[in-house]
């Protein structure tokens, strides 16, 4: 396989990671909503933790974007 083609294929495969991170982010907010609707009184105090979880889940998806960008532009 041509090296350039392999790079672009790898960059495309890295997009799978972004899709998986979307599952993670959806899970974070979904679970938060689930808990918040059971006990709305405690929900506001947990918003900071919600965004910490969101940031953690999101970062791993963003890393796959970085991998794709490195493959396309740097490697």
């Amino acid at each position, binding site marked *: 396989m041509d090296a350039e083609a392999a790079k672009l294929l790898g960059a495309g495969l890295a997009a799978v990671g972004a899709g998986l991170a979307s599952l993670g982010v959806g899970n974070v907010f979904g679970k938060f909503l689930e808990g918040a609707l059971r006990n709305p009184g405690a929900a506001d105090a947990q918003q900071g933790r919600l965004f*910490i979880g*969101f940031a953690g889940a999101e*970062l791993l998806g963003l890393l796959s974007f970085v991998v794709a960008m490195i493959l396309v532009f740097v490697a």
Partner: protein
Amino acid sequence: MAEGGGKIDPMHQFLVEPLFGTQDWQIAGYNIAFTNSAMWMAVATVALIAFMSLGTKGKVIPGRGQVMVEGFVRFIDNMLASNIGPEGKRYVPYVFSLFMFILFANVLGLLPLGVVGVHPFTFTSHFTITGILAILSFTIVLVVGFWRHGLHFFSLFVPHGTPWWLLPVIPLIEFVSFMVRPFSLGLRLFVAMTAGHILLKVLAGFVVNAGNAGLGVGLLVGIPSFGLMVGISALELLVAGIQAYVFALLTSLYLNDAVNLH
């Protein structure tokens, strides 16, 4: 990926170019020409000062401007109070400046000023800038930690209740997770802004190219793409706020580690 033809290069918006000054303006081998990045940083600062001057009069009956400014200040104040405790009051100025600067930068970069010919430059989409902001936060955490606890600060790497047989492993893992913080902090903001702006430019390229390809294609591809662009723009506005919030939140969490240890 610089193909010619009718392709619209989505990376062109991130190009740092000197506005005035040339390659010859150098200090110790580094070019110090005034770039569009520097100009938009200055614009963000001026906008921030203008916004803050709306509400720093301290009137007894606050006007609209003062309510806005006080809302932001109270937001950061509450965040630090809930994450760090009463000690957190001391770090409000730093975290507030950080949050407002990033927020203004992100939102300024999204402004549709292109229609009047001024192309906004999102300087938070560059790792040099977000990386420096992250290193600044990390340095403050280190200074605060060593100032308050001295060498006892290293107990951060051994959480309470670690079983003795995990002692060879846990400090290593904690150390790696501690050292990767500035990297992940800067990377998150930079990638989130870059990805959003590339997406918007790619969709804009679809609209332009579909419009050039004829009426049928223009209606079939251009209109849905344009609708998607409007939606993504709203999403980007949300991301701009969330990323500024997350940056400030994580900074305050790391400060909490430094102030209270575990």
